[in-house]
């Protein structure tokens, strides 16, 4: 259990060394035998990773900050309202008391709920390693399901979210049962007068952004048509059949949630 960056860096690397934050993913995978790292480096004692900082245009969230702490933070509620909206839907209080944003991100699940908020907030990942620090946008940091650009001797120190107080946030998640369900499909969005940001969960190998639809929203002006927006949005998804739902069901859910997003925004916005 390293206590500072120097010590942490000296412990990383090695064949199958794993970093542990809240352990809500890692320990479940170890218990089920799907993973057996020879060494686990816990961040539990790390200094300086537990802060939520106001950086002006952005908010920095340290890698040890738990989901429960995010829900209680006034700065986040005021400047990144989409984040608590999404985090509230994650697991149970027990899970949220341990789980971290960085753990959810590095896990890189296409169903990772908080990753949706990171895409919508144009988040930057602050990565440190023996060779110093580098920064990367979340969209390029995630390479595929469970895969990121993180190398073995690197770790995520913090995540920076763009403040989005002027946007109308929405998040819809459809799961199998209300309690702690992994999303079958989810749609998150931020809408201002001129701009829409949208992200889909669980309907592609990673969280998906319907870029063509977003461009259309910004350019169409008077001619804007919901059907055309939905058609373009659906180009971004490649849902699969799996134990939780069929591809057809997933597409239908996404289409309906996209329409709901537009409807709710018109009513409130």
């Amino acid at each position: 259990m390293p206590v500072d960056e120097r010590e942490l860096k000296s412990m990383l690397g090695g064949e199958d060394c794993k970093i542990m934050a809240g352990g809500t993913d890692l320990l479940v995978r170890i218990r089920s035998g799907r993973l057996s790292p020879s060494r686990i480096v816990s961040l539990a004692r790390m200094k300086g990773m537990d802060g939520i900082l106001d950086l002006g245009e952005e908010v920095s969230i340290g890698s040890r900050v738990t989901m429960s702490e995010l829900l209680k933070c006034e700065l986040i509620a005021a400047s990144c309202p989409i984040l608590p909206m999404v985090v509230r839907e994650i697991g149970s209080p027990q899970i949220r008391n341990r789980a971290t944003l960085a753990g959810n991100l590095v896990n890189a699940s296409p169903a990772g709920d908080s990753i949706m908020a990171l895409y919508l907030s144009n988040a930057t990942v602050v990565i440190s390693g023996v060779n110093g620090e580098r920064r990367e946008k979340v969209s390029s940091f995630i390479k595929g399901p469970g895969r990121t650009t993180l190398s073995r001797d690197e770790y995520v120190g913090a995540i920076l979210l763009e403040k989005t107080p002027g946007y109308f946030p929405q998040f819809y998640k459809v799961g199998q049962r209300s309690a702690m369900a992994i999303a079958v499909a989810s749609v998150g969005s931020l809408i201002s007068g001129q701009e829409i940001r949208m992200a889909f969960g669980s309907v592609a190998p990673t969280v998906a952004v319907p870029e063509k639809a977003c461009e259309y929203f910004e350019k169409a002006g008077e001619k804007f048509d919901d059907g055309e927006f939905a058609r373009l949005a659906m180009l971004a998804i490649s849902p699969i059949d799996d134990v939780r739902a069929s591809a057809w069901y997933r597409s239908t859910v996404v289409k309906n949630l996209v329409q709901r997003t537009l409807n709710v925004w018109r009513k409130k916005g």
Partner: protein
Amino acid sequence: MKITLNVNGNLHEINIDPGDYLLEILRDLGYKSVRRSCHSASCGTCTVLVNGKPILSCSTFAASVDGQTIETVEGLSQGEKLHPIQEAILEEGAAQCGYCIPGIVLTGEALLRENPEPSDDDIKLALNGNVCRCTGYESQNRAIKKAAEAMRGDDYE
């Protein structure tokens, strides 16, 4: 490695393996109210409070809570006197087999400490991670509400 756990006010200095889970360590120390069933962070029967917050001991390394304060149900009841949530659970008939109850009592207690006047929705959300295979949760939600009232009443007297 050596760690110190403060469990219900009792200090335990113990030797553990870095890979030991809190659940087994607590049970070995005699805190048998901490129960194991799914072992995969899905059911909530292994819930304990760490620094007042509910967490799942089946998926927490004992080493990661070294030096911290842990509460189990044994620490809530005082001798023969039950905790108000336990009383209310009995009164509402909210325990059938009882296996899930310690987890529910602790999760409920953490909720009431933070929010002494929870709405029905607050209670439902708080108990999201506690699975009960016998009851339909309704009686347990009622019990938490009743306990909340009883506990507030105590404060005002």
